[in-house]
């Protein structure tokens, strides 16, 4: 589904990601781990189109997405979440959820002033958004400003709202960072449900390895911009190089 071949990214001559090749298959949950500064987040930003690649090629479902802008990549069905919850804090939970819906007629400045062009559509979107919010137990909070949510709810909403765009795959950057353990567990359960019910695919950066390893099929390990190892969760623990990276020699 997602295929990276020999992707590199330089910043001012500094190589942040070097020659990374990886692939994610339909319906998989794949983990991406590594110490701070190993280039994981940069890689995610490169895939989602925020940073242009320096070299290499990225394909998503047979489309070459290497040169595409983030909005085009989203439209192809590849969404992403953020490490710091990145909601629109001056907007309500419901507006945050509806926003990613694609091709809204009301987002055309010619039709926007006239409700009759988009009222129907907006109502349907509201229903769908409510459904999504109910899945994460936030149905009743739809009218609240996003800034009034707790940290954990922000994280959940950050993941949930991308569902509005019906993505086939999500890239997540530390979905449980700064969240208490029980809530972290429920975030991962939500991810597992999405795979189960909507057949969604995930590539997840996470530092909470104990949690992550319960849910992923495969793990890639990055170190100093390069791919160090790639295996199943159980095997990766026995990998001497990985142990060295995490604990020292």
């Amino acid at each position, binding site marked *: 589904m997602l295929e990276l071949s020999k992707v590199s990214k330089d910043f001012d001559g500094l190589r942040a990601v070097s020659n990374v090749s990886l692939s994610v298959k339909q319906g998989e949950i794949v983990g991406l781990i590594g110490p701070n500064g190993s280039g994981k987040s940069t890689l995610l930003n490169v895939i989602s189109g925020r940073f242009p690649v320096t070299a290499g090629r990225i394909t998503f479902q047979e489309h070459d997405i290497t040169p595409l802008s983030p909005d085009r990549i989203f439209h192809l069905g590849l969404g992403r979440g953020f490490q710091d919850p990145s909601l*629109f804090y001056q907007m309500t939970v419901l507006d945050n959820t509806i926003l990613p819906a694609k091709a809204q007629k009301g987002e055309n400045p010619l039709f926007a002033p006239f409700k009759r062009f988009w009222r129907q559509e907006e109502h349907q979107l509201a229903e769908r958004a409510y459904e999504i919010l109910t899945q994460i137990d936030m149905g009743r909070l739809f009218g609240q400003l996003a800034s009034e949510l707790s940290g954990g709810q922000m994280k959940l909403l950050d993941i949930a709202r991308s569902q509005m765009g019906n993505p086939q795959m999500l890239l997540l950057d530390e979905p449980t960072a700064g969240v208490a353990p029980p809530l972290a567990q429920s975030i991962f359960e939500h991810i597992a449900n999405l795979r189960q019910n909507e057949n969604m695919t995930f590539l997840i950066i996470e530092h909470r390895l104990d949690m992550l390893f319960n849910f992923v099929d495969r793990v890639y390990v990055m170190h100093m911009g390069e791919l160090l190892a790639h295996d199943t969760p159980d095997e990766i623990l026995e990998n001497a190089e990985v142990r060295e990276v995490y604990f020292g020699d």
Partner: protein
Amino acid sequence: MNIDYVATTIAVLTFFGIWSLMAISLNIEYGVAGIPNFGKALFVSIGAYTTGVTYTRLLPILAGRDFIHPCGSTLADAIQLRSDIIRTMPVVAFVNFGITLVIAAVISGIIGFAFSYLVLRLKEEWFLALVLLVGGEIVRIFVRGYQPLICANNGISAVSQPFAFMGGRSASIAFLMLVLLIAFIAYVYSERLIRSPYGRLLKAIRENEDIARTLGKDVAKTKAQVMFIGSMIAAISGVLFAVNLGFVNTNDYVVTLTLDVWVMVVLGGLGNPKGALLGAFVIAVLDRLTAIAAIQMNMAGFNLEFNFVRFILFAVILLLMMRYRPQGILPEPNYTTEAHDNLTARTTGD
């Protein structure tokens, strides 16, 4: 001295209407979508310059008269011709006025659109402010130096408003009504825009355009649309401004005009169209009050140039507002979109 209260009121309200348009356009651009348009004078001036051109070139053609070169030795004849047509052929005057509005809006919209794509290349965000500011000055210097447009720095006079045939006060009142009508339409448009899904999109871009982009929104295109809309409204206000003054001169479209509009929007309340109206109203009243005070003071023997006091006053208002009440007199309300009504009805119905 006796103040003619009716005439003053008409004048204040007319300026209020015209400035409302400018404030509404900046409010959509900066207040709602977060685009700092420091080139308001540029887009207003496009309306004014268009007026200068159509009144001297298009008007005689529409009236079936021969074109008279508007500058230099034939200046007086050209002015006579314009006044004649506007006074005696109201239909022609209206058609010309309408065409002017359309041409100005389209040209200005396209330029605003082009600017927004141009600035995608800029490295730092405040460069946009600088480029727009400087763009306005370049156009002004060009128009001032290039005679065929509006007679260079002499400008064009006798661009009477289309109701001039009615004569006297009824003409001013009729024009005032027209201005207020246009301002009202712009106001309703911006209110509805803000409450629509498009308004939601603009607010998302204002808050974090990077994330809006990763959620599938074409930020560059949307900003270009906003600049198109804002610049159109600004140009329309420019036409009305020039027609109301009766002349077009490059000296009226300088940076201080841009600052005036910013004062209105910051004073009234960013992101709130009602605030834009309020800001325009306060400034229109203050502007006239300082003018009246100046005349009164002069009569009383004080030789204080109140025009200067006006600028100091506006700058102080701007600073105080930004410091102590950055949200403005009327803060941006928490607009709820249509979707909320739907869900509220549903959840209370359960």
